[in-house]
């Protein structure tokens, strides 16, 4: 993991997929090259005008290693990832596509397991699979199975946007961080934590819908799915886009004790690690307590907590306050060296 200024890489490296600084550089390259045909706003979903109404649209690809884990698989992640990206835009997810790249030799039984997970997770999220595609590649040209899902949702309330965030907004996490990363790494390497620490992978549109109803109109300003790049990537994105300092309290971060153990063993900071069932919300202070109460009454939000706030300071940095009250700048990682967790 490196910090600071770097030359642009002449070829794709694993860290281009980490969700950290190199990923953002890659996205910038894509956007610049696409030019005026790109009209996205760099939210988790695009908000699009369609004949006087608005829809949300998003897409995501999934290359999880291992594709099958203790409490889920790539099929569950592929539905959750896209459903959650639509939900954090403030949309109600409705329709998903399902694209599959299958490696020769993949047992049909494993494909059926993945499809069963897609079905069950889609049922829970209240979405339908409306079209799909399959491609088969030779042995070694893919790792068992890769998925892509695109999703469409409708807006039944005002969209959530980064631009609505204001100084004083509370930064709220809906659940613990780091568990998905520890669970998958533990299965990948046999680290011994896989039964104690499970993936947090879950469809969170129901949770977010409940909060938006409880909070009061317009008082949850923005939301992000805390996936690859972790909480740090989300906070840096907001600090940069808003031109504001975001301050967090390290001690407030919800982290399972076994996850602390594993991260300490691996030398990884959980604030940089991927999750699949955790949202970061930016909430008007007037609604903070209502939002926390609503979150904690839901099975996917029982450990929700406020971790910081957006300040009025115009330096676009993330400040982290430790147990002793000392503040330091949270550095943005160039890459993360933890590929294929999503």
């Amino acid at each position, binding site marked *: 993991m490196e910090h600071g200024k770097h030359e642009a890489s002449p070829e794709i490296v694993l860290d281009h997929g980490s969700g950290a600084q190199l990923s953002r550089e890659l996205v910038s390259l894509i956007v610049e090259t696409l030019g005026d045909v790109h009209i996205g706003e760099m939210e988790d979903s695009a908000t699009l005008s369609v004949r006087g109404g608005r829809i949300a649209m998003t897409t995501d690809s999934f290359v999880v290693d291992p594709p099958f884990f203790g409490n889920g698989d790539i099929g569950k992640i592929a539905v959750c990832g896209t459903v959650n990206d639509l939900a954090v835009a403030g949309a109600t997810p409705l329709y998903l596509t399902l694209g599959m790249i299958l490696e020769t030799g993949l047992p049909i039984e494993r494909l059926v397991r993945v499809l069963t997970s897609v079905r069950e997770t889609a049922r829970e999220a209240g979405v339908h699979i409306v079209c799909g595609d399959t491609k088969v590649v030779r042995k070694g040209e893919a790792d068992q199975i890769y998925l892509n899902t695109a999703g469409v949702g409708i807006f039944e309330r005002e969209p959530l946007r980064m631009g609505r965030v204001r100084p004083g907004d509370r930064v709220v996490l809906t659940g613990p961080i780091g568990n998905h990363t520890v669970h998958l790494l533990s299965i990948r390497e*046999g*680290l*011994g934590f896989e039964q104690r620490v499970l993936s947090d992978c879950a469809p969170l549109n129901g949770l977010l819908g409940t909060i938006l109803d409880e909070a009061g109109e317009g008082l949850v300003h923005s939301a992000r799915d805390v996936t690859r790049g972790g909480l740090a990537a989300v906070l840096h994105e907001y600090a940069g886009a808003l031109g504001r300092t975001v301050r967090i309290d390290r001690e407030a971060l919800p982290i399972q004790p076994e996850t602390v153990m594993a991260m300490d*063993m691996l030398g990884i900071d959980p604030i940089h690690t991927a999750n699949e069932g955790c949202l970061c919300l930016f909430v008007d202070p007037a609604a903070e307590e209502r939002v926390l109460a609503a979150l904690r009454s839901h099975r996917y939000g029982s450990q929700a907590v406020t971790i910081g706030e957006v300040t009025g300071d115009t330096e676009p940095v993330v400040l982290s306050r430790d147990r002793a009250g000392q503040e330091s700048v949270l550095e943005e990682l160039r890459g993360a060296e933890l590929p294929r967790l999503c």
Partner: protein
Amino acid sequence: MGKIAVLTNDIQSDVVGKTPERTAAVEAARPRFLGFLAEMRRRGHGIYHLQLVNLPDDPNVERDPDGTLPLQRGSRGAAIIEDFLAPSDVVVEKNKDSGFYETELHARLQADGVDTVLVTGLQTQICVQTTAADAFFRGYNVWVPSDCVVSGNPEDRDRALDWLGGYCATVAESDEILAALDRDGELARKVVKILP
């Protein structure tokens, strides 16, 4: 009172000989390590050797620079090094870092009435650490004889021992462990506060 078992990790020539630093570290630890194993056998405690075997279809296995798969089942490089092995010892194959991960180790220890494990071998910061953590999560009383664990880099070893002592194990030199057994007839379980 449950039985005590010693678990060794990866005492195999493909692992020990991977770097000159590892080989030297094992040689330095060898006299005390062998002496401890012999004394534990003499006292009637079981020795379980965790034998790392790489599976050909595991995409995460680290191959040699020429693409060869090290530690193949039945190969000379995967065999437990002879000095460390006695006829009464048990060898348990493992395919990942933790000796408990999808192996028969837990079932064998349970069947043998073991509730305390002394985790040894190499490398301290990988297989010893993960096997100890896994044992702790499964409810074993975990001890680590600090002079019977090895790393190619001494700093990795020291950091791993700090982690083990801080989270899930009692770390002590092998002669201290033997003295505790002489004195108390058992090894006390550490009170660990990390978990609720």
